[in-house]
């Protein structure tokens, strides 16, 4: 036998020995499991990054978002509009240097179509502390069908570098429970 530094002479295309063959087969089998899990989760799982995807003009997206804000606005916080969209509706979230607009008030167990886009550079939608992350790209509308499954006061941080005040880009999402009455009124921010 020779080392990997030596040039093998003659024909080296030889059958593998048992242990090596066995490991290749096991590894291949595991790779197939890894592959199968993704389509399977699309069929059976509740978390997929599919969404509705369109190209969109950033200015048109901004206009749509501000119209959405005007229609469903219920208040204001830290200079940012608070919006409570009706169940099942299209919700627009806009990333810009360096804020998320608007603050969203959602209901637990209700489905929404959450649209994400940016008017300037890339941003990162990161819902904390849930740890739900999506890329926000200018010129593209990412429409994700979401169902909040827990009540709480959540933060939206930006996790794609977007300039010097990247760390100040923090938004807010409030999720209330219908069955528990009108709890979780805005408040608690800085």
């Amino acid at each position, binding site marked *: *036998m*020779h*080392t*990997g530094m030596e*040039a*093998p*002479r003659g024909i*080296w295309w*030889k059958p*593998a*020995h048992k*242990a*090596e063959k066995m490991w290749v087969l096991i590894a*291949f089998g595991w*790779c*197939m499991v*890894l*592959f199968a*899990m*993704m*389509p399977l*989760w699309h069929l059976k799982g*509740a*978390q997929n*990054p*599919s969404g509705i995807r369109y190209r969109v003009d950033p200015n048109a997206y901004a206009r749509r978002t501000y119209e959405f804000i005007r229609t469903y606005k219920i208040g204001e916080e830290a200079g*940012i509009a608070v919006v409570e969209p009706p169940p099942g509706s299209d919700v627009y979230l806009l990333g810009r240097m360096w*804020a998320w607009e608007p603050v969203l008030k959602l209901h637990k167990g209700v*489905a929404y179509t959450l649209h994400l886009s940016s008017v*300037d*550079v*890339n941003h990162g939608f*990161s819902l*904390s*502390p849930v*740890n*739900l*992350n*999506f890329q*926000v*790209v*200018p*010129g*593209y*509308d*990412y429409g994700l*069908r*979401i*169902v909040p*499954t*827990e009540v709480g006061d959540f*933060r939206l941080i930006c*996790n794609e*570098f977007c300039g*010097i*005040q*990247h*760390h*100040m880009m923090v938004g807010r999402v409030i999720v209330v429970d219908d069955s528990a009455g009108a709890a979780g009124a805005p408040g608690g*921010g800085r």
Partner: protein
Amino acid sequence: MTASTAPAPFRVCPATGLKVNGQAEALIKANAVAATIFLLIGGVAAVLVLLTRWQVVHLLPADWFYRILTVHGMSMLIFFILFFEMAVLYFASAVLLNSRVATPRLAWGAFWLMTLGAVMVEWMMWTGKADVLFTSYVPLRAHPLFYLGVILFAVGALVVVGVFFGTLVVAKRERTYEGSVPLVTFGAITAAIIAVITLGHGAAIYIPTFFWSLGWMNVDPQIYRMVWWGLGHASQQINVAAMVSIWYLLGALTVGAVVLNEKISRTAFVLYVLFISMAAAHHLLVDPGLSPAWKVWNTSYAMYLAVLASMVHGFTVPAGIEAGQRLRGLTKGVFEWLRRAPWSDPGFSALVFSVIIFGFLGGITGVTFGTEQINIIAHNTLRIPGHFHATVVGGTALAFMGITYYVIPLIFRKQVAFWPLAKIQPYLFAIGMTVFSIAMTFAGTFGVPRRHWDTTFSGAPFDVQFNPAVDLVVGIMALGGLLAAVGGGIYILVTVWSVFFGKSIAGLSGDQLRALGTGLPAGILTPPRPIPPGEPEHRGLTRGTLVLVAVFLLAFIAYYFVNWKLLSVVWKVG
């Protein structure tokens, strides 16, 4: 050997018997020195970044943090690693094949072009004209010279790859070796092919972006991300192929590891070439511009065939070491071959830690986070740099460090300085990087973002509270990182001192080298004994490795499914 046609002089290496061409040697030296300089720059940047992310210290202001983070990424991932890989290419072609370098003048031109490009990029970064991070996502804008510098560097690297292929042709024509190229050279060939694919993506994105920075055309942000990652991720796959080649090389040099089966190992390398560039998709899994079918197919490298390749090497490398040791008489029990290995040879310890950190930490996390849906709970959090510091630093850089302890005596023909420090260097670096990567990955599971100056979000309109464990975990990450930095510092000290002030061992015979007694790795002082000729009995030759890979597979399965469980409890999204 018909080296008579070769104009450049050769010397015969007393330790390995290889014929070393003077031009090849000089090119290896130049590229290795350049690599070390950029490692130093990137390493200083690493410590500054670490001491800022550790909120207790929070060293740099925001603008300098992002600037230094850009410097860290470019210096390490592009300049250090590619310069080192250029050295590897010259070694794997000219030295291992006893050949001259095809076109030495062009090779030197390429070296200086790469240097010019790298200096331009560093200049732009340090003067604050390119605060765009490693990825420079359009429409973040840097100075045009930043993009031009990257282009020049990439063109230089591409020329070196061309010289490498030319040298293979020269060696074949001039019959400087008999049979097929060695496995290590074969692996380097795959790295070079991947480099062509990678640099092609680099040209396809940096040239339009250069024009965009001059205001001549538009670049779509999503298309930028897709093509750029054809460079950004694929360049890390050059590292994988180069690193695995070095695993085989270090195995051969330190303990005389054997190649169990050329067909299996070479086919695994070919799988890298065929599928590994698809990994650009790993960065686009939660992007708006691409369909689920595209994501699933590409992120899995066409049904995980490149993962299969790594799992094959993960078996054949330790199995080759085990078989080599057993054939030399270390046959007791399951692990005598490993217990009685040369653990005080930094080449050997670096090899073992590189395999373990790359496989267990880097590989498992990479495949898991690169799963389309699981990426939802990983994208742009600290889990991602946690993963790639295990692959690129704990895996690739550590393997490069290990081979350096052989390059210093074999190519630079110097005794390794500060030998006691050199012996513990891989241990410090490996332990530090392990702690660092695990803590970083763990912090990311709480949603702590990567590339972030201030995770206390001072001045933001709403306060953010992470899990209270985060502070502790980030503190552990900082300690691990600092330990790794000490290991990296020792590496640079040992390398620079040996090369510039070290004791020359040129012309010394094997006995005279042994008489030195220190400053040389065990693989040179007491080269592995020859193996008795003939086809050995394969039964039980790799049973220790089978135990090791079984442990690996169980860890893999556990981590993978735990992550599906974590995903299943977050908000419904589709």
